[in-house]
């Protein structure tokens, strides 16, 4: 069990109920260092390299994280992320669907929201959501969020599920009241945002704290990274061949999944298969102002920790990575239903890739070398509301 900075001292009240006294961390999370601005800044071995903005490659710098936050804001965000108090029924926290043991996703084809019980694939009785729950590793680098890219910051994104009736089913009033009634949160918000505890808790502060915590979820120490930084024993022969398929121009995966983050902020119509019995998901194409050229386009997801986030695609159409590779290896546009007007992204293979079985196997090996959860934050054992924290899925 990890003990970061937070020390949760459990006090047994007179009536037997638990109350807790929480202290926010005064130092930055793993892989972050405090700068003179008092905020935590990412430190990564990719800072050793120089390249022009936007360019990918093996030894190139990372894009900047979109936001920087104080240790207290990050730690407060961690408590909020795991606290069901924000949800309408007080039963679901962010972590119920973005579970730390499932790479901050839920292992389901599509998410399960309001009134749901439990976590992960075993979650039941809740509203079935239309899209797959994305994992959160490296989400702080993104300039577009949600599958259709409709939010442009984590702050904006974080309140989306919170106030969606079929997800956490909360309201601004509920959030404000639930937090205002909690003396611990009043104190912690005042500390994190350096203001008087008498001031009301603002929704913007909740969003900032959640974004701060999510920004701390950084995964850059996979075996691939060791290879990138110069250890050519870090990948097996098959994985190296897979890396060559991945970056080469028959596979051309790096054109959208740009290393070293293996993601991009572009929307791409790749011709995903429909979900049986449902209308074809037009993705970004139906966001106002409706743009038919974006029909069926979705945000390019990261491939970091991709082995941990099955099933895949915006509605979990593919159960395994092998299915995904088969999809890309099949002819361009093969899965688009007749009549769906989709302009495929121009980087989708112009001819069928026709990768032979060995290449496909190597590619799969490589994708499994992008796993790293070494900077996992501590899951709190208790949260200020006293409500139960998510169960862990593997000890």
């Amino acid at each position, binding site marked *: 069990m*990890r*003990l970061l*900075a937070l020390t949760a001292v459990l006090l047994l009240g007179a009536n037997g109920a638990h109350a807790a006294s929480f202290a926010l961390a*005064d*130092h*930055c999370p793993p*892989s972050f*260092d*405090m*700068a*003179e601005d*008092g905020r935590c800044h990412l*430190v990564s*071995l990719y*800072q*050793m*390299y*120089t*390249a*022009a903005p*936007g*360019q*990918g*490659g*093996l030894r*190139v710098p990372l894009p900047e994280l979109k936001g920087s936050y104080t240790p207290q804001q990050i730690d407060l965000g961690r408590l909020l992320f795991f606290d069901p108090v924000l949800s309408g029924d007080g039963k679901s926290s962010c972590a119920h669907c973005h579970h730390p043991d499932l790479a901050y996703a839920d292992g389901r084809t599509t998410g399960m929201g309001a009134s749901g019980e439990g976590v992960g694939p075993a979650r039941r009785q809740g509203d079935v959501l239309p899209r797959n729950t994305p994992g959160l590793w490296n989400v702080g680098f993104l300039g577009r969020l949600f599958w259709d890219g409709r939010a442009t910051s984590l702050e904006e994104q974080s309140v989306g599920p919170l106030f969606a009736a079929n997800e956490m089913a909360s309201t601004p009033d509920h959030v404000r009241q639930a937090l205002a009634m909690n003396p611990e949160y009043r104190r912690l918000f005042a500390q994190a945002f350096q203001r008087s505890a008498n001031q009301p808790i603002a929704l913007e502060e909740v969003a900032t704290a959640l974004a701060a915590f999510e920004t701390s979820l950084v995964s*850059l*120490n996979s075996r691939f990274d060791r290879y990138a*930084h*110069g*250890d*050519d*024993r870090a990948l097996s022969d098959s994985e190296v061949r897979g890396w*060559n398929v991945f*970056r*080469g*121009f*028959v*596979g*051309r995966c790096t*054109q959208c999944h*740009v290393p070293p983050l293996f993601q991009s*902020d*572009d*929307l791409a119509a790749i011709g995903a298969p429909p979900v049986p019995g449902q209308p074809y998901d037009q993705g970004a194409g139906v966001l106002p102002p409706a*743009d038919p*050229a*974006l029909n069926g386009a979705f945000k390019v997801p990261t491939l970091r920790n991709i082995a941990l986030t099955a099933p895949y695609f915006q509605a979990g159409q593919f159960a395994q990575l092998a299915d995904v590779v088969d999809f890309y290896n099949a002819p*361009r546009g093969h899965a688009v239903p007749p009549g769906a007007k989709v*302009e495929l*992204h*121009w*980087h*989708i293979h*112009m*001819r069928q890739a026709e*990768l*032979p079985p060995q290449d496909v196997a190597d590619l799969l090996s490589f994708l499994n070398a992008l796993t790293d959860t*070494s*900077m996992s934050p501590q899951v709190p054992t208790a949260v200020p509301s006293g409500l139960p924290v998510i169960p862990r899925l593997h000890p």
Partner: protein
Amino acid sequence: MRGSKPMTASALALATAWISLAASQALGATLTVKAGESIQAAVKRALPGDRIEVEPGLYKETVFIDKDGIELSGIVRGGQWPVLDGENKLNDGVLVSGHGVTIERLWVKRYKGNGIMTQGSNNYRIAYNVVEGPCFYAIFPQFGKNGLVTHNVAFGSEDAAIYVGMSDNVDVVHNQTYASIIGIESENSHDILIENNYVHDNVVGIATTMLPALPVKSSDRIIIRNNIVARNNMKNTAPPGAITAGAPPGLGILVLGTDHTTVEGNLIRDNDGVGVMVSETNFLVTTPDDRMDPFPDSTQVLRNVFLNNGSNPQGTLRDLLDIAGVERGVDVLATGKGRDHCIADRLALTTLGTRNFADCAPGTTSAAVASMQTAKPVVATPFTADQKGRLTYLAVCTGCHTYNSKLVGPPMVVIKALYGKDEQRLADYIAKPVRKRPDYPEMPSQDYLPEDIRLAVARYILSELSH
């Protein structure tokens, strides 16, 4: 609480560049690859600064270079070349991510993907190669700064024969490209010089493009100068999904959405569509991208020689000319909303759509730009060992250790007390940890970190770390 100051850009710039030094000083060994041996095996053995000489012979492999400062150099003897043959089965011929790499005098043929590709490499040189299709791009430097592509012959590409993608400061000079969809293309790149090339018998001769839905969102400062651009009238055989499928044959030079593009001193002849076309991105590709500007600005069409262009415009060019009621193609055709263009020699040319082009000021020339390469090699790793020690501690070790409390591993105050000033002993432990504490898991070996970095981390922990 105050932390240590993060590394600034200026601090980066001050430090040393061991990679480019290693490459330029040629301190390394020479490894020889004989016919029947594996080039990759030599790459695996090579160290930065080494030169690999490849004897004439047939090599059926993909060669990849993920280390810096390697010179891969073919030996041509009595007209016999070292030939890399993908047999239409292998994906790519040569893949490079290392900096300061040279690829020269190889005959690369029949790879399904690219013949020679660099990705994220700086300070590269691709020279004196022959790259033969069918392939996707024959020569494709992508994502990198400061490169030279010179004296190559490239033909038979299903897209551009020489394709400079999302790159900065590249010279493409003295090459011959033909029998490809596009002879030479610069895509979403900056500071590119395309000069003294012979570009003939392609669908499109030379194109500079601003393409959507790519991570680099601008395309600027490109000089197309002193090239021979002739007979680019090949039938377009690009597959229907390709954006080049819409490229009409007969285009000598295409300026598509790029800014500050200069076309000067070229001999542009016998291209059956149009000599020079200045257009916006959606002439070829309509994918929307709200983060880029699709309109070309500040094109300069300076003095060039136009001979016999426009005798048989086809496809979308034909459509455009029909709308204007013009039968024959023109020397210079402009469409779209670009601004601040100029044209020289207007009266000597046939033009269409150039009404918003100013006359270039007399004497305007790009001659002052002899090269777009950077004056000095790009510094690839501007960190001292001590700085790397700190980076590595924060980027790797903090996943399990904090300064003064137990995380996964023991707190660093305990380690500091245990090792005192013995950096070497701590560095050795980092490489080969053994279980010492029953209440902690065994530390995984960190021997993937180079020896000097392990020592630097140990020094950082024992001498610097204080909070």
